[in-house]
Structures are given as C-alpha cells and as structure tokens.
C-alpha cells in the first residue's frame, strides 16, 4: 500500500495536471464568433489548441509561450520562481491549407487575450 502511494505521488509530481481553457475567436469584419480551446500541458508553458470556425471548419494546432512578467528568487536573481504572465503564439491548421496565427498574452491562471490573422487576410480577436 505504501509503495502504491509513493508511486502515485511520484507520478503526480512528474506528470502534473493538464488544464483546458475555453474561449472564442471573434472575426473582426463580420463579428462571427467561433469556439476555441487551449489544452495546456502540465508545465503550463505549451500545448495544443483547437477551434471550430463559424463556417464549421475544424482547426487544430499548437501553442507555446515565453515568460513576460515574472517573480524572481530574491537570493538568486537568475532563478525565476513564477511566471506572472506569458506571451504566446498559437498556429491553427484548418481546412484546405487555411492557417490562423494568434499572438496572445495570458495570466498565470491561463486566461488571456490576443489577436489573430489568417492566410486569407482575415483578422480575429481572441479571448480565453
């Protein structure tokens, strides 16, 4: 029983918890709203993203981030203790070589906003 508890503890420590953040894409020109979901990996730095555009088009892709505002260790300044906010990029692949690229900013809790542009010249506002 003790071994099982230790194993579960070790796995939880290593794997952590994946978290989903739901939001929407708002097409600037028409105001059409689409659903978007960010699937965060356990380290909360990167993950996958999916969306269903207003026309029904299914999109999938990846996102990754860098630290923006941080809290540093007061004894060792090089050591970042917490990332208070992050900047990130997400690229979604939709149908027929349609790609949507988003630049976003998000808080430590995972909620954020940004703007997107696709390869057809359409602009979107992102909120999640």
């Amino acid at each position, binding site marked *: 029983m003790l071994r099982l508890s230790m194993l579960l503890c*070790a796995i939880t420590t290593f794997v952590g918890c994946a978290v989903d953040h739901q939001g929407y894409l708002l097409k600037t020109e028409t105001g059409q709203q689409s659903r978007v979901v960010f699937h965060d990996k356990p380290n909360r730095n990167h993950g996958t993203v999916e969306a269903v555009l207003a026309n029904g088009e299914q999109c999938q892709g990846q996102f990754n*981030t860098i630290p923006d505002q941080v809290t540093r260790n007061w004894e060792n300044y090089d050591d970042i203790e917490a990332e208070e906010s992050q900047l990130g990029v997400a*690229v979604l692949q939709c149908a027929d070589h*349609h790609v949507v690229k988003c630049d976003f900013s998000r808080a430590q809790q995972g909620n954020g906003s940004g703007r997107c542009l696709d390869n057809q010249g359409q602009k979107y506002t992102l909120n999640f």
Partner: protein
Amino acid sequence: MIAPKVLLWTGFIFPLVGCMGTQAGHLYNMKTGQTSTIQMESPEYSNGKVKGTLPDGASCDGQFSEVSTENARKITTVTPMLTENSVASVAVLNCGSGRVLRCTLARRQWREFSYGECQDQQGVEYSLVF
C-alpha cells in the same frame, strides 16, 4: 537483483523526460498554409545546428546562435514577440539553389525553443511553433 529495479525506473523516467538531444518545431508558410518540420539540435544551448524541410519539400540546414533581444530586432526583418525575460536566437538555413531562410526564435533561458518567425529572400513569411 538491481537490474529489474533499474529497468523499472528507466521505464518510468524515459517516457517522462523524453529525448533531450533535438527539438522539432512546426513550420507554417503563412502565404500558402503548407507546413513542414524543423529540427533544432541541442536546443538548450546557446548555439547549435538546425535542419529540416521547407513546406515545398526543399531540404535545409544551418545553425542557430543566441543574441540579445535588442540585436535580434536589429538584424532580422521578422521578429516574434520577445520580452526582457526571454532569450532570442537567430537561425540561418541554407535550403539549396541559393535559397536562404532567416529565423528569429524565442525561448526561456536554458530551455528549449518556444516559437519563431522566419522569412525567405522572396519575403515569404513563416511561423514556427515548437
């Protein structure tokens, strides 16, 4: 009796840690929407080799080097979002037939790459997400 324990722990640790030698990123042609893969060797270091293919199939190889975020903005035509708490690198890839792809990349200090922006001589822009 040690061997089974070593094998057991190796079985747990390797899937979690993965291979740290290379890092693959998705390269998106932001004009055509076509995609391909770029691989960074020793991504946690300040410089290393890069190889991969352009979305049209051309093979590329080159090198990346860490630069200051200020210099990254000066020496490249496309720059991804960078912060004072991120690290910038510049990669130049030779894709044959005189084709050159220049990329600016962002990452965490001592960590693998996060994302980047690239441009070829024709001005075609590419996004890179790891």
